């Protein structure tokens, strides 16, 4: 019998796990610990509606106060888990730095003086997500990353002064930031060591079209270019030096070069850490200890491989799956990953996985019409489908090919 479940990480995955525990009937003690001072909020709008100013930042909140109270959980915001003892089944928590109730800020138990609190659990969900990867020089004024609401608000206010913007990294975040900054009418350069934006994610065919779309909207592309350093004056960034020694003048630099799983606090736990916290097919890292969301690496039987997915829907689905497994379902988690990205008037939607050596076939529409879908085939089976403004009915049917691992479509 579980009597105390602790969820570490109070964002999409952690909230989903906590709510699913309750909706599946768990009525024991529940604690939700989140390092950020904000109540759980949604990240995808940060580089879309928040940067562009279409939404007031309050709209990113995931649940209102009533829904949070319904969880009947001890929600501790502004508190960081700093260590885990698997055999003793205790967490070490840092001092609470924020929260609605100041009286709770003092550690209630644990070692006096160190500010570290011990918290015992018998079930644990690790949902600490990822942190933005940084470059040397990130401490300079004008250099930004976008992972948190605070990051997005800081970047938004920097963009309002009409700066020249250099975006480093042409993945999802970088391309979305470039699109949002162009939407604000700014001078934007997108830099990446790869040959085209999103090429690492979706291959040449789609990447060339992404490149075209960004140039059409006035983004300057500096592909095949690494960054050697930031140029600065008096602690403020003034430019970005590229591998060919040219310097791009910049007032704002956005570093969007991927993220690293937030597992540093598990270093002494002896849990298996690789690219994320490594779990089995049920998302279990150790008895009674599960992981969900961006931090979790698990074996997905549907695709017969280990994966770690930084997608919004996965956070919800995996949170719910680990809640069920913690309560005894013991089912493998075998989703078809889903991801979307909005840039300008383009909505990219991706189901499945996109291995680098997959072959691609257009399976719907025509790329020249900017409304199409591409299937990704690996070893004779469809493993991924990418829709580019693809009509919903067609896209749902194509998803089924991935779910079924349908045979190769080439030549159909």
């Amino acid at each position, binding site marked *: 019998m579980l009597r105390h479940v602790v969820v570490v990480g109070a964002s999409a995955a952690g909230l989903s796990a906590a709510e699913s525990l309750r909706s599946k009937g768990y009525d024991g003690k529940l604690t939700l610990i989140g390092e950020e001072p904000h109540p759980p909020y949604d990240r*995808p709008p940060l580089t879309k509606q928040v940067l562009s100013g279409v939404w007031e930042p309050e709209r990113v909140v*995931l649940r209102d106060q009533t829904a949070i109270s319904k969880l009947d959980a001890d929600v501790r915001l502004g508190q960081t888990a700093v260590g885990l003892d698997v055999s003793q089944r205790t967490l070490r928590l840092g001092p609470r730095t924020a929260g609605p109730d100041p009286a709770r800020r003092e550690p209630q138990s644990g070692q006096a003086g160190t500010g570290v609190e011990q918290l015992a659990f018998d079930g644990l969900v690790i949902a600490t997500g990822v942190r933005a990867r940084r470059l040397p020089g990130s401490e300079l004024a004008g250099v930004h990353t976008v992972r948190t609401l605070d990051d997005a608000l800081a970047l938004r206010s920097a963009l309002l002064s009409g700066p020249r913007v250099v975006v480093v990294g042409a993945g999802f975040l970088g391309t979305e930031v470039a699109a949002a900054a162009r939407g604000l009418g700014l001078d934007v350069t997108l830099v990446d060591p790869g040959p085209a934006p999103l090429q690492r994610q979706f291959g040449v065919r789609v990447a060339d079209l992404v490149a075209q779309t960004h140039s059409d909207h006035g983004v300057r592309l500096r592909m095949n270019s690494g960054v050697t350093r930031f140029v600065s004056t008096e602690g403020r960034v003034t430019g970005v030096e590229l591998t060919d020694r040219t310097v791009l003048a910049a007032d704002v630099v956005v570093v969007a070069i991927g993220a690293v799983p937030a597992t540093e606090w598990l270093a002494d736990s002896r849990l298996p850490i690789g690219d994320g916290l490594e779990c089995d097919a049920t998302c279990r890292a150790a008895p009674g200890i599960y992981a969900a969301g961006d931090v979790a690496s698990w074996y997905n039987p549907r695709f017969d491989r280990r994966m770690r997915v930084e997608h919004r*829907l996965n956070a919800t689905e995996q949170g719910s799956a680990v809640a069920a497994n913690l309560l005894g379902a013991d089912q493998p988690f075998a989703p078809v990953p889903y991801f979307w990205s*909005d840039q300008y008037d383009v909505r990219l939607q991706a189901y499945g996985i996109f291995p680098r050596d997959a072959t691609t076939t257009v399976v719907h529409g025509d790329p020249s019409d900017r409304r199409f879908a591409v299937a990704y085939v690996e070893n004779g089976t469809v493993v991924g489908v990418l829709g580019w403004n693809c009509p*919903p009915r067609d*896209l*749902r049917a194509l998803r089924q090919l991935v779910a079924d691992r349908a045979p190769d479509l080439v030549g159909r």
Partner: protein
Amino acid sequence: MKVFVDQDRCVASGQCVFAADGVFDQRDEDGIAVVLDDSPPDDRRAEVQDAAAGCPAVAITVEG
């Protein structure tokens, strides 16, 4: 039970249609969700609640 979709939040994922086809559909032109049946029969409650819980944009509300 009453079902609402906030079309401003919807990101056209189609998850609600997978969860509760017939209660939800998506517009052809942009994939934004529409509610086909805003007071579905009670035997669809579980599906509708799954749709709301599984919406990656938190765009679905169920009342009652």
